[in-house]
């Protein structure tokens, strides 16, 4: 698959190298050149400097031929808007984004974007771990 990853932070760089190691063709986009230093030496994909909300940058990143677009910048609104541009302007088949705020996810999922909220995931994991720990102590 051709995959574009927006945001080369901890999650973005990890995600990009994971997909890359699974032999997918990956392009990572970020507004900061230094963020690309998080990518491993072995990374075979492309790292492109630019704003993911800018259609021209997205075209440079090859969004016309992308099978998937994943937005994982630090900013919920940027992620959602970039995902919407990918889905509704460029017609990318698989579009996913991270939103820290789970309350607003449903509004955007209605338009065919898959949103993942680490907030809910982590809170759930903490509860599970706590209950496990209590159970073990008993």
């Amino acid at each position, binding site marked *: 698959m051709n995959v574009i990853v927006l945001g080369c932070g901890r999650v973005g760089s990890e995600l990009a190298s994971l997909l890359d190691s699974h032999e997918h063709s990956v392009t990572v986009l970020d507004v900061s050149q230094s963020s690309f230093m998080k990518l491993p030496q072995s990374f075979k994909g492309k790292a492109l400097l630019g704003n993911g*909300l800018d259609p021209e940058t997205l075209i440079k990143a090859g969004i016309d031929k992308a099978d998937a677009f994943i937005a994982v910048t630090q900013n919920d609104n940027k992620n959602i808007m970039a995902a919407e541009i990918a889905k509704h302007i460029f017609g990318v088949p698989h579009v996913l984004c991270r939103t820290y*705020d789970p309350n*607003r996810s*449903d509004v955007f999922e209605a338009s065919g974007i898959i949103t993942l909220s680490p907030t809910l995931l982590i809170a759930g994991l903490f509860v599970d771990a706590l209950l496990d720990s209590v159970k073990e102590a008993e």
Partner: protein
Amino acid sequence: MYVVIMGGGQVGSNLAKRMSEQGNEVLILENDQIQADLVGKKIGDDSVILGDACEVTIQEKAGMVRADIFFATTKKDEDNLIACQIAKGKFNVKRTISRVHNPDHEEIFLKMGVDNIVSDVDLMLEKIEGFLVKTAFKTLYVNEKTETSLIKIAIPSNSHCVDQLVKDVKLPDKAVLVGIYRAELPFIRPNVETFYMAGDQVIVSVKNSDIDALVDALTI
């Protein structure tokens, strides 16, 4: 009408002032404490809530279910778009109107259901182009052999030539200022003391290839 405005900057606060003068109930949602205090002084503290309009809970607090219009006026396109979508998707606000900063984003705003958009750049360019509209000139006579025309041009009031000495305004090479019709006065034959005035009808002989340059020289 109940009007909720995201952003208490220049656009948001002036819009709020105008909407409330027109008898509407107005509320501003402003993210920044200092800006919120400032706009509170302008339109009344009761009309401002400190908070992020992209948060569902803040929109709830603002009573968005009964809002007739939601305006998004910040400089960040992503914030404006998401706030409008929440207003519509969660609270069924009838009408969302958003400022759009990047003209390339107009399409996605409309596709995602924002009812009206106001593009900063488009508006400004339109206005600027309005200033630069080419003044109409009239060709009085064309000499085919010398490729020269006799042209009549009106001096607009915002032209840099206004109040300038005729001799100080550089015209294209070989252009000859024949004279000026000014209001009721007899035809003016220019001399070293002649000024251009707004509304002057200027008669110039000029090479055909220099007509555009002549119009620019007299009207910009």
